[in-house]
Every structure is written in C-alpha cells, then in structure tokens.
C-alpha cells in the first residue's frame, strides 16, 4: 500500500509537459509596458529653455521624511543664481542686470518653497528629470523665469533710466509695474518727462493724434457711386 502511495506521489510531482513559450511580442503574450522616461522628460534644461515637456523620472517614491523635503527645496534653491543670471542675460543680449537678477532670485526662492514634495520622493532623479509629482513646483519656477525674461525685455532699459533720474517707484517695483503696464500716474509722468526714449515701449501711446481710422470711417469711405444725366 505504501509503495502505491509513494508511486502516486511521484507521479503527481512529475512536471507536466509545458506548452511552447509564446514570444513576448506575440499577440497572445501578456501586455508589456515600458515605464522608463522618454526624451521629453521635464529637466532643468527644459525649465531654462521654457520648452514643453512631460513629467517622468526614475526616482522612486518612498516614505516621507523632513530631510528629503528640505533637500529637495535646497537643491532647487542652489541653482537659483545660475538660472536667473541666464534668464536675464538671454533676454538682454548678454548684458547683466544686478537688480533684476536679485528680484528673480527672491521670487525663485519663494517659488522653490513648494518643491519639497513632502519629502516623499526625490524632486529630480540622477539625470535631472523632475518627478511626476513636481508639476506645481516646476510650473512655479518656470513662471518666475518667464516673468523675469519679460521684465528684462520690456522694462529693464526703462527702469534703469528711472533709477538714474530718480523717478518714484523705481527698482523692483518698476520692473513689475512697467512690464504689466500698471505704473502709477506720478511715475508715468516722470518716465515720460525724463526717460521718454528708454520707456517708449512701456509708456501708453498718446490718444488722439494720428489714430487709425475707425471701422465706421472706413466703411463710409468705401461706399461710392455716380450718376449722370
């Protein structure tokens, strides 16, 4: 009896004939996905250049820690000077502007405060790719750099002149106000009087003189006819 049981056990334990393996690319094979980041990942380079990108990285999420949160924010704050200097330099054809760089850094550091990710993951992986959860952080930093580039392009020459000529509302406030066309009447009067050339782009155009014809005027002038008798 024991011999029969042992035989049955052995029979049961013999490996069954395995079906031929299906190649992974076959339609009947199980789904295969690739979670590796692509060449469109958001990086410090895409942040600098303002390019469209997608959030994907190799950084694995882990347990939250205060140290990681602090390290994430510090990492991005450490590159603030380099990013701001480049953003201003690019917009001003290589010229530097200490006031604007300082303004940029202050705003950038404030924006970087939301980049800790609660310490749950590395903000960027080994190849500099932003983590999928870093979208708000990335957009905050990107927004600062874009605004500073706008200020450098539109307001910098005007605000430099305003500072030299002692106009009110100069320095940091001037950059923001002029680029958004929210300059106070007193500053505006000073700019148009003392910095007309430098602020020509930023100052509102004079109303009245040499204005374009209105739609009604154009319509009237195109209507014509003649009769003879």
């Amino acid at each position: 009896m024991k011999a029969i049981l042992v035989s049955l056990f052995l029979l049961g334990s013999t490996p069954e004939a395995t079906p031929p393996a299906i190649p992974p690319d076959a339609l009947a094979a199980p789904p295969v996905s690739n979670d590796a980041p692509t060449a469109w990942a958001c990086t410090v380079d895409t942040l600098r250049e303002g390019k469209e990108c997608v959030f994907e990285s190799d950084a694995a999420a882990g347990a939250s820690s205060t140290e990681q949160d602090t390290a994430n924010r510090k990492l991005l704050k450490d590159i603030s000077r380099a990013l701001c200097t480049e953003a201003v330099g690019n917009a001003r054809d290589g010229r530097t502007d200490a006031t604007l760089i300082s303004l940029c850094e202050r705003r950038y550091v404030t924006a970087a405060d939301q980049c800790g990710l609660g310490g749950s993951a590395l903000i960027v992986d080994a190849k500099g790719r932003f983590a999928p959860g870093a979208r708000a952080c990335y957009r905050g930093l990107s927004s600062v750099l874009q605004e500073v580039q706008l200020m450098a392009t539109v307001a910098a020459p005007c605000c430099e002149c305003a500072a030299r000529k002692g106009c009110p509302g100069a320095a940091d406030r001037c950059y923001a106000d002029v680029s958004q066309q929210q300059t106070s009447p007193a500053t505006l009067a000073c700019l148009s009087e003392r910095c007309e050339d430098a602020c020509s782009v930023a100052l509102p155009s004079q109303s009245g003189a040499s204005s374009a014809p209105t739609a009604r005027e154009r319509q009237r002038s195109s209507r014509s006819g003649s009769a003879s008798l």
Partner: protein
Amino acid sequence: MRHPSWTLPTWALLGSIAAGCGASHSHVTWTEAPPREDAPIVTSAPEAPPPRASADPKAFTARYPNPALCEAAARRLQAESRDEGWAALKACIELTPFTQIRALLGGAWAEDLRVRPDAASLIARVVAQRGGSVSGELQYLQERKIPIFSLASAVERPDTYKGRYVMLRARVADQRSEGEKPTVWLVEHTLASVETNAPVGLGETYDTSSITSGDLGGQTQLTGPGRLGGSVSTQERGSVSTTRKHYDNISDETGREALGRLQGADPFLEARRDYVFLARFDGVRLTSGGTDDDAEAPRIPVLTIVSYHSPQALVVY
C-alpha cells in the same frame, strides 16, 4: 517530364493485376510471366522543386499572378510546414500589393497570428496597404478578437490598455533624443471623406456689356429751349458648366497626440507625412502645459513604436 518509374509497359500493370488475381484464386504462377522488355528510359534532368518561400520569397511570389492566389498557395504550404506556410504568407504580404485582410484574419492563420512575434506588424502592414483607414480597420480587428486597439480607447482607460498594442495613423511633428533613443511627438490623423464638385466636359462663359447714350435738344412753349442727355450702361456676366460630385479622402487631425519611442534614429520616418504606426501603449504622462491644477492638467499617451508603414493612397473598403 516523365518519371522513370512511370514508363513501365502495360504488361507490367497487367502482371500486377494478374498477381492480385493469383492471390485471390491461386491459379497463376509468377514463373509463367512473359519476359520483361526494357522500356526506353527518358534521360532528361528532373525538374527543380518550386522555390521555398523561406529561401527565396521573391521567386515564390513571382509564381502567382495575384496576391489572393499567393495567399492560397501559402495556405497549402502550411499543411506541410507551419513555418514554411508563414514564410510564404509574409512573402505574399511584403512583396505583393496584398489587401485581403479577411483572408489574413481567417481561421487558417488564426494560430499563427496568435503566437508569431511578427504577426501584429504584418497586420499593420496590410492595414497600410489597404489605405490606412485605421479607425475602420480596427473595428474589423476587434470583431475577430485581434488584440490591437485604438489610441482613443487607450487614453480613456490607461490602466486597462497599458502594455497592449495600439494602432494609429499619425504624423511626426517633432523629435527629441536622449542618447541614442529618440522620442517623436505624434499627431494622430484620420481619413475623412470630402465632397467636391468637379467640372465635366465643356463649359460656357459669357460676358456682355452695352452702353446706350443719347442727347435730345429742343424747346417747348412752356419751358423754352432745353437739352436732355444721358447714358445707360448694362453689363452681364455668367457661366454655364456641368459638374460631377467627387468624394476624396483627406487626412485630418483627430486632436489626439502621443509620444512615440523609437529604437534608434530613423531617417526614413519623415516629418509631416502620414504613417500607420503599431505601438505598445506605455500609459499617460502629465505635461507641463495647460492649467495649474494637476487634476485638469493635460495628459499625453506614451507609446513604444514597434513598426510603421506608409499607407497607400487608395483606400480599400
């Protein structure tokens, strides 16, 4: 050609029948058979066997006047060897204008389509050769339970379709590379029918203008002397032509976009040209554009491109 064994004289056949008869009746002996005469042997060389599709696919397909007969021959070969049959089918699809998707998805090839690693690409190629109307073809594939899906389905339920095959008609809009691995930005397209009126035969255009002028002078007792003059100008322009309605397929954007990984840089994959892509769906990723709210942020599907095929201009329905 005559095979040597087919040249036996008639008596040999009769002898065999006699032997059979002897077996059943036992009254004929073999020693009584007449002496055998040597038949003339044809010494021409034996004909070469038909080319094997696996060895010479071009020669195999050249034997058949159309793709349907080529596929039928491949099916016959399948009975002898599955591998040889599959090689023959591939030759028919890759070397002839093969558009018989129903034959490909028929029962004869079902098992091969299930387990061959190149089956999905072969289906994509046939879809391209049929004009690349992917949305219509996918419906048929799904009726036959072929697990190749649309990009739209995958984007709607990423978890369900992750890792599965998707097929789309798309154009390359942009490309970025990280090392040797480029990723292209794809813009999905679809074929849409557009109605136009095309002139047929002779047309007629007419242009008429006339000016009539007059001058009348005289006097009346009431008004005294006076003159009345004026002119009337008329102009008429028109055309008469016969037109016929034409329906053309144009490629139009669907509004969906995707990122497609390539194995390496590929100069043949040109920008701004339509292709039928077969790819694995790798899920969706958040993009940097759109609104600040992550929940409403735009997501883009990521694909691993398996193969791509240039669609034919004529669509087969």
